[in-house]
């Protein structure tokens, strides 16, 4: 398998800020790859490095095996869907979509058919003559997608493309993007701060923290086997059990993660805990518990949580296999 994008010891410094710090990363050809992290973690800078909007301070980036450090964005075989879509307001939808072909001086009739094909693909037939300002957020997003795909890039970069959409539309677009990626068979590199989005779409993802890759793996790896406390706490609502708490329970280790759904409420055995608060989530009930002055979150069935009241003393337990030992943050 060839690599679509490869980072070799890549750093990017802005004045004294290390936005990207010594990153090694390989994105495989044809995979749906997500870069996940809080704002300021360096994920967007990595995307901009691939597109060529930023140049690395040190290290080398290769796209499809070719080093691109000295290649300007207009000569790279990657295209970008921008966070704000960046549709040209003075051009119609069709002119926006066919922009790349016009730059390449492609014949007008070919340009027209290609543009119509792309608009069909994103389900915007008949919208070609409108201005971007006349479209809804979801429609603009699809125009941006069509515009980025028209020159058939090998790698498509997406910068928080669903950030501006409402929840329902976002879920629809997640499905659509995923099936689009499968049909086209090209590499999608996707930046997001939403772990749900990353998990539901990506084949693999990199979790970023302070300019470094905190963990690289499949969604299952990251969710069930977080390598360190940062990943465990950032991804979902995993509990991080500190060294103190572990020791008080007679367990050796630096820190451990425990998924809220792995905590059971027992009436007899188990560790003593106090219920701080509970919230009704529909199918499940979320309990906020305190053990040895540390907070834990548990997710239990509605039936199990029904009779509990705040300030109740409860007993909790979990399977030893649910406890995942972690290393210090990188």
């Amino acid at each position, binding site marked *: 398998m060839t690599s679509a994008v490869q980072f070799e010891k890549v750093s990017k410094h802005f004045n004294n800020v290390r936005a990207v710090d010594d990153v090694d990363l390989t994105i495989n050809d044809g995979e749906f790859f997500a870069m996940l992290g809080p704002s300021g973690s360096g994920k967007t800078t990595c995307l901009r490095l691939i*597109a*060529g*909007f930023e140049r690395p301070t040190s290290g080398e980036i290769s796209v499809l095996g070719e080093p691109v450090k000295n290649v*300007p*964005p*207009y*000569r790279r075989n*990657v*295209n*970008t869907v*921008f*966070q*704000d879509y*960046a*549709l*040209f*307001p*003075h051009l119609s939808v069709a002119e926006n979509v066919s*922009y*790349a072909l016009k*730059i*390449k001086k492609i014949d007008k009739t070919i340009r027209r058919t290609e543009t119509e094909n792309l608009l069909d693909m994103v389900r915007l037939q008949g919208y070609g003559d409108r201005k971007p300002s006349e479209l809804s957020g979801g429609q603009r997003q699809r125009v941006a997608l069509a*515009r*980025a795909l028209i*020159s058939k890039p090998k790698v498509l970069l997406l910068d928080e493309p669903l950030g501006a959409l409402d929840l329902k539309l976002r879920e629809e677009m997640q499905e659509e993007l995923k099936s689009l990626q499968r049909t086209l068979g090209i590499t999608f590199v996707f930046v997001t701060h939403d772990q749900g989005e990353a998990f539901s779409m990506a084949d693999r993802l990199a979790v970023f923290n302070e300019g470094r890759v905190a963990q690289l793996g499949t969604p299952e790896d990251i969710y069930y086997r977080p390598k360190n406390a940062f990943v465990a706490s950032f991804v979902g609502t995993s509990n991080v059990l500190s060294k103190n708490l572990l020791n008080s329970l007679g367990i050796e280790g630096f820190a451990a993660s425990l998924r809220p759904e792995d905590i059971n409420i027992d009436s007899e055995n188990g560790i003593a805990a106090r219920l701080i608060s509970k919230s009704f989530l529909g199918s499940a009930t979320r309990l906020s518990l305190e053990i040895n002055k540390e907070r834990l979150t548990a997710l239990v069935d509605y039936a199990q949580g029904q009779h509990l009241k705040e300030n109740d003393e409860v007993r909790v337990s979990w399977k030893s296999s649910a406890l995942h030992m972690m290393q210090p943050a990188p």
Partner: protein
Amino acid sequence: MIHTHTLPDNKGLMAKLSDLFWRRPWVLLLALLLPAILWLGIIYIGSLVALLVQSFFSIDEFSGLIKYELTLKTYLELLRPANLDIIVRTVTMATSVTVAAVVVAFPIAFYAARYARGRWKVVFYVGVMLPLWSSYLVKVYAWKLILAKEGILNWILAKLHLGWALDGILSIPVIGGNSLSVSYIGTFFVFLYVWLPFMVLPMQAALERVPNSYLEASADLGAKPSKTFWSVVFPLALPGIIAGSIFTFSLTLGDYIIPQIVGSSRLFIGQAVYSHQGTAGNIPLAAAFTVVPIVIMAFYLWFAKRKGAFDAL
């Protein structure tokens, strides 16, 4: 149930008035707009219409009195070679000044909009506005001294042994002359200097609204910087350029001070209007001359709109 009074009082005139404005928003709108409507409608547009009506009267050649009969005779007068010369000369000057202002102002506006931040933005605004704060006459006379044969420009060029270059330029027929201060080139430079801020500011405002992501998107789609400039930056800056050119163009068309102080003493439209309505007492012809810039500007805007200059608005 006992009715309790818990809402804050609305005692006093201001409070009553505020409540009225809230209930009837159009009252506030009318109160705010009425002075402006009266000013614009009666004093401004009204007097302009009165002037335009004058242009359809004519002057009796023997008595020198105005004949109050509607006629196009005065407009025919405009087409006499001497008057047509004035119009062509003024329009040519206004066009050259506008084109030069676009070329000079664009890099300044581009820098200010895209790169200047914080302190440098302040330096930009002060630098562009400062010339507007000092008297227009002082600036024009200053330029006359700078451009004069005994002026500082000649002196510097002589020290640099570049006097021959200036002489070469001044020897060009029509636009040249005895010295810069009595040539069309001199008039052109002073016009350019005086009106430049009116081009820079609207241009900068237009460029300010072009986010970086548009430029990145264009590059991402394969456009080299020059291509991005012509297909993204320029069209989006065009409304600002048009706005600026309306200023520089119409201000040059109407000005009568600059060509009188710096230039070759051949008349511009503004000077023609001035002399016809003054000593000559030919108000109809002065009015007809005033119509010329208005018609030119209307035509220019119509053409710009047709060419899609305002599509980005």
